[in-house]
């Protein structure tokens, strides 16, 4: 009892850090930046400068309460509730700020979320995710939570709550292209992953069976992994261009020095190492006695591979696939540079126009996609490991 009392009164270190960050963001950093148009630098506004006094006080009080929970409450369920409340408060505040600062009918001024907003959002979101981690929900529950939060976010965006914010202004202008590039982004990431699995899985099995092949294959794939993405695109440009020039059929199939083909090929190459290495590692982890017994009982090599070895190696292989998928979702962004499309199009266009809102229109969905992919595959791996425990 004394022990739990002592624990209850101890200050949570992560909570202290998050509370300090949040307080600093709220007091000194701009919550929103008001710009007369999308290019001009704007002037910074703190939360209290934007919201009416009553709303501002309510916000501050809410955030103070959340900070206190972060500092001193050990119960993860309370911490989760407080973190989620924080996300809602911060989101509502920025939406309100957008609506209040934008004159009616004006489509030129921009209200951009400022560094204070992002830091506050990060602090409360971290608090919520940390609480979820401490609660150790079952994999299915984690996927449900992801779906729920995703649906709420998409719902709020579709409802128009944030329409006066700069990023949503960029979205409104680019809505058609956004849908297209989002699909392209997902397609590039998944197709290169699928191609990599088709090649890497047999290659990994072969490396496991033939030890002499293993060192050489893994070393070569390692070298590919060290080439920066932009350099790899450059390296692939010449041979693919030559191929397209020499073989008209290849050109008709869309294989060119720039565009989708080199993008997919580069992502495919990057994807090989994690899948091959994890396939080898997974197969090595399989108990030799189990394989020996399987052989002794008259299972064929194919039966041993599919019913024993691969099943036992699957969680490790899926971990490799998770690494690749998250990595690819990030790397696809760079593919925009060589005309491969994807959300990177907005990032590089935004950089070119010094329009940071456009950059964020590409970057934020990319991060969200990678996060969702990580949660989904982690849940899958864990549910498999649980099934056999």
């Amino acid at each position, binding site marked *: 009892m004394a022990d739990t009392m002592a624990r209850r009164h101890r200050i949570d270190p992560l909570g202290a850090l998050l509370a300090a960050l949040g307080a600093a963001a709220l007091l000194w950093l701009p919550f929103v930046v008001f710009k007369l148009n999308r290019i001009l630098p704007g002037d910074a506004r703190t939360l209290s400068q934007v919201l009416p006094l009553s709303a501002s006080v309510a916000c501050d009080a809410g955030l103070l309460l959340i900070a206190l929970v972060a500092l001193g409450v050990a119960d993860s369920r309370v911490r989760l509730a407080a973190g989620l409340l924080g996300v809602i408060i911060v989101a509502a505040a920025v939406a309100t700020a957008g609506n209040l600062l934008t004159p009616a009918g004006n489509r030129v001024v921009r209200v951009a979320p400022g560094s204070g907003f992002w830091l506050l959002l990060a602090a409360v979101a971290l608090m919520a995710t940390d609480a979820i981690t401490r609660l150790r929900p079952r994999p299915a529950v984690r996927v449900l939570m992801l779906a729920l939060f995703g649906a709420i976010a998409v719902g709020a965006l579709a409802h128009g709550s944030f329409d006066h914010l700069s990023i949503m202004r960029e979205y409104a202008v680019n809505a058609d292209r956004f849908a297209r590039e989002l699909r392209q982004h997902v397609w590039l990431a998944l197709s290169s992953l699928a191609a990599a699995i088709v090649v890497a899985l047999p290659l990994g099995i072969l490396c496991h069976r033939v030890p002499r092949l293993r060192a050489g294959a893994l070393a070569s794939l390692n070298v590919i992994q060290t080439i920066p993405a932009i350099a790899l695109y450059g390296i692939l440009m010449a041979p693919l261009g030559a191929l397209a020039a020499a073989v008209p059929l290849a050109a008709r199939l869309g294989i060119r020095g720039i565009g989708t083909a080199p993008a997919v090929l580069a992502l495919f190459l990057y994807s090989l190492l994690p899948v091959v290495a994890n396939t080898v590692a997974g197969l090595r982890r399989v108990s030799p006695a189990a394989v020996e017994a399987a052989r002794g009982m008259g299972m064929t090599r194919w039966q041993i591979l599919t019913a024993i070895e691969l099943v036992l190696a699957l969680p490790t292989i899926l971990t490799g696939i998770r690494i690749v998928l998250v990595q690819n979702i990030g790397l696809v962004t760079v593919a925009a540079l060589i005309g491969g499309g994807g959300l990177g199009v907005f990032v590089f266009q935004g950089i070119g126009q010094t329009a940071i809102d456009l950059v964020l229109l590409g970057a934020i969905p990319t991060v969200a996609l990678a996060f969702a992919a990580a949660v989904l595959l982690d849940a899958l791996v864990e549910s498999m490991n649980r099934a056999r*425990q």
Partner: protein
Amino acid sequence: MISIDQLSKQYGGTTVVDRVSMDIERNSITVIVGTSGSGKSTLLRMINRLVEPSSGRVFIDGSDTAAEPAHLLRRRIGYAIQGNGLFPHRTVAENIATVPRLLGWQPARVRARVEQLLSVFQLDAAQFAGKFPHQLSGGQQQRVGVARALAAEPALLLMDEPFGALDPIIRGKAQEDLLAIQRHFGTTIVLVTHDMDEAFRLGSRVAVMSQGRVLQYDRPAVLITRPADPFVSQLTGLADRAMRLLSLTTAGEAAVPGPSGALEIAASASLRDALSELLWRGADSVTVVDADGTVRGRLTVASILAHGRPG
């Protein structure tokens, strides 16, 4: 009956098994014993062709084992190994059902067989069928391993150091169980071990291997009383060979007629146990009784000692 004919295995230039010929009796336990590197495991693994012989042949009931695909041959032969090799992702019932399923048995027949084996191995089906191997103790895992090897009712069971990973007390129990199982199913068992006590305890016949050759292949008592090679007598142990000999005969077999006394011993106990009991009690004779209490006769110190001498 299994007939092994001039069986050899070479790896590169090294001969691991060297022209071994032996006949293995049906419905009995034959033990191959030897030090590590003697080729005993390789010999065993050539019977079910986990290792393909370099030369020589193996016949089971007259048919050459090389004549059918190796994996089909293995499905007819039970195989149990040290550390049991259970599939960690499959339940006890699924593990046991492995070979019956490979053979395409009807599900109902598979279920019935699994339940029968679990009860024979003293594992409650309701409690154990759905468990995963890591939820079992070492002794239970080992029993499931043997049950799995016997699942498809093989006439022949090969065991490679099956009790090697068990601690001594559980090992003794496992050996006892194996003898009971062998009597129950009448399976022909070939077992490989490096443990001479285990060999003498289980084997009706024991083959001693060294450097790829079978030095002597006979009944345990003959190995002790008439070793064919210095290595055999070294392996069987010179110092306690008389006690080993006593341990091969049961009190029931050695009982002689005579008056009954108060001190009793079970007919299944060995003469070694009987002598130990007499020494401990300071008695001169002990009455031998069956499990149902019938008096089988008696043993005196002198009659026991007579069994501890060769010839």
